[in-house]
Structure formats: C-alpha cells, structure tokens
C-alpha cells in the first residue's frame, strides 16, 4: 500500500515536471508577443509574394483592441482592459491558427507563378525566333528580286548600246 502511494506520488510529480514549463511559457507569453508571432506568420506570406488581407484586417482589429486595453489600464479600468485583452487574445489565436494554411496557399501560388514565368521563356524565345526567321527569309527574297531587276536592267542597257 505504502509502495503504491509513493509510486503514485512519483508519477504525479513527473507529470507536473513535464507540464510545468509548458504552462509557464503560456502564462509568460504576453499578448504583445502573440501579436508579434501572428505578424511574423503573415509577413512570411507577403514575402513569398502572397496576400492575406482578411488576416491582416483581423490582426489590426486585435491590435486596436490591445491599444484600447492599454488606454483602459492607464485610466485605471482594469476590468475593461482584461476583457479587451481577452477579445484580442481570441482573435490573435484565430489568426495564428489560420496562418499555416495561408502560408501553404501562398507557397503553392508562388510555385505556380514561377512555373508559369519560367515556362513562358522558351515560348517567347521560340515565337520571336520564328518571327526573326520569317523576316530574314522575306529580306532574302527581297534581296534576290532586287538582284534580278538589276540584271534585267543591265541586259536592256546593253541592247540599247548595240
């Protein structure tokens, strides 16, 4: 009985030891840091050439609430400040949850855009070269016709001389 009690205590302490850092991290992570994380996620999307205006709008909504909460704290209205921070927190969590999917979409769009642009290179080269070739042939034909005309004129000139 005593052994099983000690064993139970040991297991409980191990679980608490494992869980404690996680809980502490979550507690110490201020709402500002949460907004920085959300912003970093969105910045990655824009760096990849993607866009996510709806998530930016949500982040700005949360930032507005955080600013308002700071103002309420300055006014000594702690209850309203806490409530506003709670709202901001829930919006930021929502943004953070949607960021990976938006990043994936941006990455896919970027790949397609790269493939399209790279694929257009041989097409543009081929079309312009064909156009150049056709122009060259036309020029050669024109040169040849000019040469024939010169020869005929030469013959006519010779006949009148005789």
């Amino acid at each position, binding site marked *: 009985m005593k052994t099983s009690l000690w064993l139970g205590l040991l297991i409980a302490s191990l679980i608490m030891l494992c869980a404690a850092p996680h809980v502490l991290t979550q507690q110490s992570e201020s709402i500002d840091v949460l907004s920085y994380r959300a912003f970093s996620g969105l910045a990655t999307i824009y760096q990849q050439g993607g866009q996510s205006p709806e998530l930016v709008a949500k982040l700005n909504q949360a930032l507005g609430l955080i600013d308002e909460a700071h103002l309420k704290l300055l*006014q000594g209205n702690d209850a309203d400040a806490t409530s506003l921070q709670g709202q901001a927190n829930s919006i930021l969590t929502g943004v953070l949850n949607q960021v990976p999917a938006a990043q994936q979409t941006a990455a896919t769009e970027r790949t397609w855009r790269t493939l399209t642009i790279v694929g257009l290179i041989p097409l543009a080269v081929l079309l312009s070269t064909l156009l150049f070739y056709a122009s060259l042939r036309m020029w*050669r034909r024109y040169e040849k016709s000019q040469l024939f005309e010169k020869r005929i004129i030469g013959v006519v000139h010779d006949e009148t001389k005789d």
Partner: protein
Amino acid sequence: MRPRISPRDLKYVIAFALVMTIICSGAALRTLYPPPDEQYFEMWVLGPGGFAQHYYPHDDSNLGTDEALNWTLGVQNQMGNLEYVVVEVKLLNSTLSGPIASTGSPSSVQPILKFTQVLVENETWSVPFEWMIVNATRGNGSVSITGLSINGAQLNGQFANANSGYNFRFVFELWFLDPSSNALVFSQPTTVGPRSVWTQIWFNATSVA
C-alpha cells in the same frame, strides 16, 4: 535537296535565339525577384481638414483648458513589405530629452499613448488625434499638465511641466517590429547612419486656469 536556310542565316537565327534567351531569362528573373527600392517610412501630422495648417484654435499656440485640437497622424509604409508599426505619443517640455536623429535614439520619456497597426506595402494609415488639456496646475512659476483628453479618453497624471507654461511639445515616434530580434525598434541602420522617423509639435499652456 536544297536546304531551306543557308548556313549563314542559320548562324543569325541561332545567335538571335541565344540573345532572346538571355533577355527573356533576365526579364523573368526581374519579375520573380524584383530589385528592392529604397526602403523608408514616412510620418506626418496634419491640422483640421487634413491640411498642414491651423494646428491651433485661432492659430494661437497659447492653449487653455478645454480647447479642442483636431490633428491627424499619417504613416506611410515604403519598406517594400508588410510592417508592424507603433506610433508612441510622448508629452515633453523643452528640457526633457527628445529623440536624437544623429544617433537614432528615442526620447527616454514614457509614452502616454500608443497606436499600433500592420501596414501592407505602400499603405497609408491615418490616425485621428483629437486632444485637449483638461487639467493643469500652476505652482512656483511653472505649469503642470495633469489632465488630457485624447480621442475622447481622459488621462490623468503628472505628464509634463514647463516654466510659465511655455514650450510643451507632443513628440510622435515611429517604432517598427524588427523580424530578426522580434522586438520593436526605433531606428534602422543605413549606409549614412541610423534612420529614425519622428515628428513633434510645440505648444504653450499659458492660458490654462
């Protein structure tokens, strides 16, 4: 069978194709990775109606209590990317140290208010800044501003004091999030030294009760 193209023309066509490949690859590279433009933020303060004039009621910078001032802060993001910006509003007098442009250091005074926003590239952000002195106290030849109303919110405290109420100033500092340090910074290093963005507007509180 006679060839359709002479060896000389074939050389021309191949040379043209090579030149076109180089030109098209360069254009594609420029499209995929455009060269960065000059990166900077802009910030300004405008008076009523969005004009750079009539900042004070009756154009008199000697303010009294309950005289409403209607300004608009503007920030433009020309950094070429999404930016997290914070405008810190500080109330100073002439002796409290303001931001120093040459060193890129901000004022050491605590901000009384912050405005935060995420701006996309080339976006302009306008923030209304409607304020008035609600309360000020006189004593020993100086005036202390102890009550302010900003955008409808009343703030109380010892904000700043000035001799006879002369030379107060609102300083607006632009801070932005540095992705490498994940912290707000006031200035960015450039080839010509640190670059910071801030502006200030002076006023006197000589007509307070």
